[in-house]
């Protein structure tokens, strides 16, 4: 597929244009906020059926665990929307008439638009397992899913979570926080195998077991059994083992939530097809966030990007394009991401694949306690850094953003690694050990670049 040719002006630019955004997730909201900054006249309406206000989807687990209430997860106070004249419509869109430029809503009057932004998000994958519709079996994506999980686990004695990815591990942690024992089924040989190299994956798995997770590798789900009353009573694995349980969390990935626009004029594949400025095939209709699929992917990136940060950057970029005469192509900087596995934080900068081939090579260091690790992947010949993973420690985004943009070598990075440290004060520091390990493994003799500056008494605080 090629990028559609640019047709005429990018979008309607009349004063007081009606911009309607479907979806109040991070991408839709970011876009709305940035449009408002640049276009004080536009009528901006945000429609969403899930919740009236924007909340942080990434924080769903903390509501279940009792760290926060739903109210805590709202990034803006409720007065924010009216003050910025962002009209909120709490309803489901049932269909879109692209000709009439009109949305049908489930409860309320139809809505007219000049510009339509689709920020529909994702929904959990389901693989047609027998019994997946039983009560007590569910995915986790929406706020309603969370409420359901709350009800479904009220009297649960044993739970099973299927799927070795981030949402799976979050569900396991959620259940354990309520003292519900969990069996965690992972189809692959290692946890999060297609993303994490073996050592990192093993480190994480050790930690899961330390938290008494019953982790079953190379175990696929075959079917779910009925207790006779429409509730789940057990799962059966591919090898035929039956694991009794009262709750099953299905976390085997997400897919774009595009039922609304399937079989319309809008061109879709897995997601809504967009060019690099987020325009769809229909003029004045755009798509961003989890539901968008690039016709031509950005180099080194997936066609569909389903993370918080990309959703935000899509929103920023589209808002720019809608409010500036010269639209720009989406150009994300070096990749970054982060997650947390129980108590172990994970950050990554640049590209660290789970496996690599010559001339790409890697350097790995792990702390003696087995809970802190650092990996750099680089070109073995030129030493140019491709990316880093770190577990159990924090690194500075800006440092690696610069290093990757300016194509530093791994050695340039390692001799300055103390500058990248983002751990809290008084934490044990690892840059010397890491440099030593590198010297040992690669037979080099690198020295740390000049010591960090010492202000008055600052040695007390660093």
């Amino acid at each position, binding site marked *: 597929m090629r990028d559609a040719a640019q047709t005429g002006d990018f979008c309607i630019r009349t004063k007081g244009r009606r911009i309607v955004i479907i979806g109040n997730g991070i991408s839709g909201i970011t876009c709305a906020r940035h449009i408002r900054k640049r276009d004080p006249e536009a009528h901006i309406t945000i429609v969403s059926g899930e919740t009236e206000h924007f909340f942080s989807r990434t*924080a769903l687990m903390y509501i279940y665990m009792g760290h*926060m209430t739903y109210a805590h997860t709202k*990034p803006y106070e409720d007065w924010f929307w009216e003050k910025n004249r962002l009209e909120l419509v709490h309803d489901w869109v049932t269909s879109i008439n692209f000709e009439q430029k009109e949305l049908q809503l489930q409860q309320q009057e139809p809505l007219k638009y000049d510009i339509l932004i689709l920020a529909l998000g994702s929904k959990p994958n389901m693989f047609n397992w027998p019994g997946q519709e039983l009560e007590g079996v569910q995915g986790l994506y929406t706020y309603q899913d969370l409420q359901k999980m709350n009800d479904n686990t009220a009297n649960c004695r044993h739970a099973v979570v299927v799927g070795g990815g981030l949402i799976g591990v979050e569900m396991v942690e959620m259940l354990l926080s309520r003292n519900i024992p969990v069996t965690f089924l992972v189809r692959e040989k290692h946890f999060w195998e297609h993303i994490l190299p073996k050592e990192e994956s093993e480190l994480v798995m050790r930690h899961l077991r330390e938290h008494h997770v019953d982790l079953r590798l190379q175990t696929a789900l075959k079917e779910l059994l009925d207790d006779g009353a429409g509730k789940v009573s057990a799962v059966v694995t591919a090898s035929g083992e039956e694991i009794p349980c009262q709750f099953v969390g299905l976390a085997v990935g997400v897919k774009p939530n595009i039922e609304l626009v399937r079989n319309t004029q809008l061109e879709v594949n897995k997601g809504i097809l967009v060019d690099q400025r987020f325009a769809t095939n229909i003029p004045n209709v755009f798509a961003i966030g989890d539901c968008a699929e690039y016709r031509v992917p950005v180099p080194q990136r997936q066609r569909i990007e389903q993370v918080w940060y990309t959703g935000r950057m899509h929103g920023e*970029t589209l808002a720019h394009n809608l409010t500036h005469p010269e639209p720009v192509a989406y150009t994300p900087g070096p990749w970054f991401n982060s997650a947390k596995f129980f*108590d172990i934080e994970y950050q990554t900068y640049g590209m660290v694949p789970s496996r690599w081939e010559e001339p790409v090579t890697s350097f790995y260091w792990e702390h003696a306690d087995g809970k802190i690790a650092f990996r750099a992947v680089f070109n073995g010949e030129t030493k140019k850094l491709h990316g880093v993973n770190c577990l159990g420690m924090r690194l500075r*985004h800006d440092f690696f953003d610069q290093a990757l943009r300016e194509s530093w070598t791994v050695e340039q990075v390692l001799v300055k690694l103390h500058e990248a440290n983002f751990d809290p004060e008084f934490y044990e520091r690892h840059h010397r050990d890491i440099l030593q390990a590198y010297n040992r493994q690669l037979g080099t003799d690198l020295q740390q670049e000049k010591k960090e500056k010492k202000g008055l008494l600052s040695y007390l605080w660093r």
Partner: protein
Amino acid sequence: MNAIQKLGLGVFLLALLLFNALLFMGRFELTVQELEQSVKQEHVEVLRQELQPMLGKTYTSSFGFATDFNRYLDNYNEEQQRSQQWDRVIWDDYAFALARVASQGFVENNKLLLLFLTVILGAAGALVNILPKYRGEPAGIKNNGIMFSSNKARGVVGITIGVYLTAIYVLLYWYPEYLVNWALLVDPLSYALSGGPASQWFLYGTIYTLAILVMGVRMFRKYKGNNYQLLRTASVMFFQLSFAFLIPEVLVLLNLPWYDLKNIWPLDYDFFFEYSVASMLGSGSIGLFLFIWGILLIILAVPLFTYFYGKRWYCSWVCGCGGLAETAGDPYRHLSDKSLKAWKVERWMVHGILVIITVITLLTIANFFTEFALLKQSTDMLHQWYGFLIGSAFAGVIGVGFYPLMGNRVWCRFGCPLAAYLGLVQRFKSRFRITTNGGQCISCGNCSTYCEMGIDVRWYAQRGQNIVRSSCVGCGICASVCPRGVLKLENGTEQGRITDIPFLTGNESINVLN
């Protein structure tokens, strides 16, 4: 909770029950001799007459005794006021002192035993409950279930504790005669330290210190593996035990004025009032040293340390109010109001109080140097009102009593004039800031939720802006609970500290202007 922990909690609750029951125990009988020894010479005659019905009478609790005493004294005073005999009105507060000497019987005779059964056993029970916490679990902060907890989420338990604490503070500040039995308990300790009997303030200091120590141990458990939290907690425990509790008593033992060496004006609001200056300057070279030390803290230590480290060097490492908030108050930290409105109220209130105490202090000093020609004795009235409203009602009753209702830093945030002064330095001339880590924030809200000062940390973090706020006490909890490693407390160069129009790292398409 395992069986041992439950046992600990049970012991603690029983000890607490007995402790409270003590207030209703004992016998109180005032003799003429005791009366004569406890009041000023000029009042002996009057009181002997007025209290005639009480003398030799046996009361079965301090409540009956104190109520009668207050009634007789009020009757007498009202009479004098009606007949305009102002000089005959008795302003001195004898209720606590008389209840002390009148006390007999069970509590008076079993001080050590009861001290053991209540305070010591209670603390031990609490420790037995706390020490096994998180044992065998990997290090990492677990805030599981906090929002479902009746105690921590303003449920029945939380409200009950709030009402109880508030009531205790009201008694302590204004009706200490009802707490006389508690003071008796710590008599042995007081004699050992300063050679004198325990006042209600010694009692308060003992419980306060114990609360910081025991709940400090809880901090060690809860935040294990987090060196910043561990050191900070150890620091407040140390400063409370030594500077606030032991050293002042030793000073008293040496016949010097009671003085907490880390208490700084304007938190220590009466530092410049005539009576404290007179007491310091009247105590020889050590008194003079204390006076100069106090002034150096105000004009040197505050700006200098705050420039280098932010106000945290005091508020969450040294201060006694902060010490209690950071230990006993930690379970309630998320109850602070994060709204923009609360921030507006905060700024007016806390700076308003700083202005008021500064004006009062300047008037007092001016009055002193003009040999009271300026305002005569009317500064006394200002002192009393400030002491009543701010020193007692706000800092004490609301400051601590409202922990389970409004969070653990209500006083520090809305009331403390020293925090306001430190905050001004921190905001405008300091190297301290909370750095945000590029574009890594996922807006989850843990940081804002657990900010005890009600700072909406997320608001800054999600737009990539450093957090430079006058109220930040640098407790570091936001950085500890952030699941994505976004926040770091740092002392760095002043340049680049305040980023007014930040842009988030990661998107090269545009430089996003927020």
